[in-house]
């Protein structure tokens, strides 16, 4: 992999300062995504996967949120150092985002035509009519029937799946190089979910863009991702190519996630993992391994030292003091 990654995030730390104290949402994660690649970020609700992406996009509400540390290199720019105006040029145009809930993510009082064209008008020197034409072809592309007639409709006149298609059309309007899809299917019916996944995959191939797909659904990941990051409590705990992860999960948490995933096609016998307890409060800066309280393998070291990502095989990294195959603490670091 000598190619320069499209986006390279290093040591991102994001915190929220609220009256009750500080929420340690993202605690120094690093990841990258290469051009044309699909990266999946997996984790439970509240593990910091959305926050880390919003940090990259500069969409963390400030206050109370602050990006404490880290850099996000896109091209040759550090996104965290850019002025707001420069960032506006990147958002939507270079990096686009699709959000979880199409019901609330579209502005209810503006027509979808307006919502699609305004990004075009903003980023390109384009007339209103051209923008409309492009919006129509975009809607066509995402599979909205009679696109021309629906341009002046309002979001509430669309079904949930259709709205997510509109969101995708909007995100793709400016031909971004990177699409961040933040659980785009979670709020949808199961049958619609598959259609949306298929649509994104198809568009990705067409446009040759990179995709970061955030989800808590490992089932989706298998079908679309090249690589997977597993997050827990603001940390990346495991990072691997998709097949490696499924074949050989190395983190007890990943193991638990996979264990709770019904996989009828899987032949191999596997030790059943389960995750007792609930995620920790992010108000307390964890000492030691964040997963320790719920971990059946935990050893003394887990209590005091936070494990760093270590490579177990090529491209496969895990942050754990234990080798779950043997149940033994790894030696050295």
């Amino acid at each position, binding site marked *: 992999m000598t190619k320069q990654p499209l986006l390279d995030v290093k040591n991102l730390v994001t915190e929220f300062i609220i009256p009750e104290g500080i929420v340690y949402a993202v605690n120094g994660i690093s990841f990258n995504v290469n051009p044309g690649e699909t990266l999946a970020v997996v984790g439970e609700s509240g593990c910091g996967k959305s926050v880390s992406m919003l940090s990259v996009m500069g*969409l963390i509400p400030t206050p109370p949120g602050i990006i404490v540390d880290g850099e996000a290199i896109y091209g040759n720019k550090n996104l965290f150092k850019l002025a707001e105006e420069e960032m506006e040029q990147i*958002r939507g145009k270079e990096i*686009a985002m699709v959000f979880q809930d199409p019901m609330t993510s579209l*502005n209810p009082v503006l027509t979808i035509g307006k919502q699609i064209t*305004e990004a075009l008008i903003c980023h390109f020197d384009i007339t209103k009519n051209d923008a409309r034409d492009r919006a129509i072809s975009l809607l066509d592309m995402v599979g909205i029937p009679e696109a021309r007639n629906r341009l002046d409709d309002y979001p*509430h006149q669309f079904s949930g799946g259709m709205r997510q298609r509109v969101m995708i059309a909007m995100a793709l309007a400016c031909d971004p190089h990177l699409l961040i899809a933040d659980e785009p299917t979670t709020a949808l019916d199961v049958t619609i979910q598959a259609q949306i996944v298929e649509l994104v995959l198809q568009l990705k191939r067409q446009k040759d863009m990179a995709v970061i797909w955030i989800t808590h659904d490992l089932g989706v990941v298998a079908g679309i991702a090249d690589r997977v990051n597993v997050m827990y409590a603001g940390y990346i705990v495991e990072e691997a190519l998709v097949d490696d992860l499924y074949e050989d999960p190395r983190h007890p948490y990943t193991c638990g996630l996979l264990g709770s995933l019904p996989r009828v096609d899987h032949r191999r016998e596997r030790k059943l993992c389960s995750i007792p307890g609930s995620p920790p409060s992010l108000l307390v800066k964890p000492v030691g391994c964040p997963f320790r309280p719920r971990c059946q393998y935990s050893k003394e070291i887990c209590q005091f030292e936070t494990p760093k990502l270590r490579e177990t095989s090529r491209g496969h990294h895990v942050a754990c003091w234990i080798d779950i195959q043997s149940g033994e603490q790894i030696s050295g670091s």
Partner: protein
Amino acid sequence: MTRYILHRILQGIPLLFFISIILFVLMMNMGDPIATMGGRTATRPADRERLKRQLGLDKPIVVQYFYWLAGNDWTKIDLDGDGIGETYGERKGVLRGDFGYSLVNRGKPALAVIGERIPNTLILMVAAELVIILGSLLVGVYSALHQYSFTDHFITTLSFIGYSMPIFFIALLSMYIFAVLFKRWGLPYLPTVGMFDPQVGKTAGQVILHMILPVLSISVISLAAYSRYIRSTMLEVMNQDYIRTAKAKGLPRPQIVYIHALKNASLPIVTVIGLDLPLLLGGAVVTERIFAWPGMGRLFLDHVERGDLPVVMGILMLISVAVVVFQILTDIVYAWLDPRIRFG
């Protein structure tokens, strides 16, 4: 929509009817309009008796209400005191647009008495409303966008004070500062009473100059209240997912704030302002009194003091109608702003 509006209007009619009964009962027990007709001397007994009869004030309240509502031109009334009606009455009743003749400005229809003052009050109200809406949008949006900043805290505190200010205190204080003290300090000072300087005449400049302090006094409270409301509404809207979407599209901040956010925030704001608008007239009573503004509020005070039922009832009913009309207008504007209702 038309059907909806018609429905609302039909709903308003019994409401107005209801209000008129409440008010009429209250009004009937107020004072004796004839007591002060004598001017500086008490009205003579014989005249009191005759006037009561001629003005129909000797009738039972039900009859008086009925005459007020439906007129008395279909029945013979007794003018000479012999107990037998000989001439037809002249009143047409409110239902036919006749609010009766003023008991103070004798010979003048109550509506004409009120009508003369309405423009003066409206000019004050429109100006105040402009100041309130523009000002509170400016302040509210600003402090919402700069939440928790020093300016935001400052504005919040200030708006609390403004909201708690009695109108007369603002009025007296501003008169003292901008008229008395400024004059004392040799600065250009503002006029405090009336609508214009009679020596100069009723020019636009004069009226505007005389309007400054009254408009200020009327505006402060609503300005403070609405900025707070707009601030919290804007904050809520700015936290909505679609604002995040708009940001993610790379739209510049002004476009996000003024098109995406404000259009949504304007829905609750329009409701609150629309429903409050006619109630602002309440503030006019005190303000017009202090600043000697020849508007409807002062008219109300002057005529309530002398028990001028037709005029007082007229003013109150006009306000009630205004409230009902504004409720309907608010609904229409709301529907116009919110496509979910328009098409739903």
